């Protein structure tokens, strides 16, 4: 027990002195790094713009309230598009991620080289935001919902693939051994020993990703990939902040509903 003697009276200490100094040094270094980074940011900031930030924020909020409800009707179609982008995109992503996860899991992969390739695809897809995928796809397939769906799908592959292959690696090996010992083929082992064990996780992951995708799909319009983001972008470019506020309210409601649905479904399956 670390003890410090003050006037010959032992006083309890939480840590050994060396450990205490190490922790202090860590905080010191972290603090210095933070200040250094802050200096870089501060050098690149035009502080004159900051001086009237309060007024700017005030007038921005002032122009947003009250929201312009008259455009709500014309926003329903873009909202439907947004939901379609998220749902179809998720479905496409899952279709590709599902076999990929089996290739990437250590216990089901047919060959280590294939596993490396699958992991590479999963990491690349996960590292890049749906919005960047959308920017690329808009230049390739042209602006519209189709580019948005593909972007959401590409981003979902990595997310669903990673969580699913981790779930596959965590299954109990006993049912797999039991199936194999009866002479079942590889696909039969997958279907009757592996699949029932990962099904709840699979359903949970899919719905969770769908919920995230609804959120991401609301912004894809900013780069021309369809959905309610297009209307938002147009309103922002016209500085029609009252309309922007309406879009925000609609996005908020949609996201809250989708989160509720996703929580219900995950609660039911897990």
């Amino acid at each position: 027990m670390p003890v410090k003697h003050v006037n010959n009276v032992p006083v309890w200490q939480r840590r050994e002195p060396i450990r205490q100094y190490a922790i202090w040094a860590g905080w010191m270094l972290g603090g210095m790094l933070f200040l250094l980074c802050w200096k870089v940011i501060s050098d690149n900031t035009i502080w004159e713009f900051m001086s009237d930030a309060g007024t700017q924020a005030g007038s921005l909020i002032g122009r947003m309230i009250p929201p312009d409800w008259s455009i709500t009707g014309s926003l329903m179609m873009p909202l439907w598009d947004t939901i379609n982008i998220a749902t179809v995109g998720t479905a496409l992503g899952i279709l590709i991620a599902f076999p990929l996860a089996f290739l990437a899991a250590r216990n089901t992969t047919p060959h280590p080289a294939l596993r490396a390739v699958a992991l590479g695809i999963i990491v690349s897809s996960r590292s890049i935001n749906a919005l960047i995928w959308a920017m690329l796809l808009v230049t390739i397939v042209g602006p519209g919902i189709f580019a948005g769906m593909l972007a959401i799908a590409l981003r979902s592959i990595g997310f669903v693939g990673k969580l699913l292959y981790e779930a596959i690696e965590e299954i109990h090996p006993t049912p797999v051994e039991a199936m194999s010992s009866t002479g079942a083929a590889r696909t039969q082992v997958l279907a009757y020993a592996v699949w029932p064990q990962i099904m709840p996780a699979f359903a949970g992951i899919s719905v969770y990703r769908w919920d995230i995708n609804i959120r991401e799909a609301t912004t894809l319009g900013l780069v021309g990939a369809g959905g309610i983001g297009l209307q938002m972008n147009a309103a922002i470019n016209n500085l029609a902040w009252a309309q922007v506020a309406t879009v925000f309210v609609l996005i908020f409601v949609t996201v809250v509903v989708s989160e509720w649905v996703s929580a219900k479904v995950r609660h039911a399956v897990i």
Partner: protein
Amino acid sequence: MNPAGTGNESLSAADQQRIDQARQGHWRPLPLIRSRHWRWIINLSVLLYIVLAWLSVDVNWSRVAQGMERGQEFVASFLQPDFTSRGGEILTGLWESLTMTFTATVIGVALAVPVGLGAARNIAPLPVYFFCRGIIAISRTFQEIIIAILFVTMFGFGPLAGVITLAFATIGFMAKLLAEDIEDTQKEPLEAIRATGGGWLQWINYSVQPQVMPRLIGLSLYRLDINFRESAVIGIVGAGGIGATLNTSINRYDYDTSAAILLLIIVIVLMSEYLSGYVRKWTQ
């Protein structure tokens, strides 16, 4: 299903049929949804949805065919990424992104801790709880890019708007997960510190903090990783970082540079993921 030996009378006709078939060697797994009507309704509605969704998509196939060439170009550019011809801009952007990420994560986590404490039902009074949950809901609903648009309008172009955006998004993420973790803590240590007459700060410091610290560190590192990925995006709307460079290169169809930036992002994310996995193992 009935346990064995309770008599076959309570089995439904369909189950009995299944068992008879299985005895003859035709076994099929149980359907996921027992009721046949519901199975039909669900299948039909999925089909209906696919048709409806497909109708709302109008793919311009001639445009896609034209774009395919560009798609091939893009894929090919991953094999020969061009790090040098825009090297200076890439470096500046990357450096700015990294500093933004670190600063925003530190500020965000520092602010998320009080919000997280306030949003934990077992230690916060009801009004504080609702206030903090409100902050979390707003911060989590809107994507970073939307928040970035607002902050760029308020604070002008540059990395400061980006830092504030990322910090704001970090608050929602961290505070929600932290609050859930606090709600899951064991309540005996909380009662014990209370019983010794410790003040509120001592109570939090000695009973709550030790229980949530490993997870808090793990989540902070995870968020660092997310913030870096997001910093590549918010540059599109003028909030600084590598995103602006990436956006320009894509709009110029300069795919060799885009591929170089994307590869750098992937490598940095991989490195940080590996590192955070290591640190998490060490703290737990």
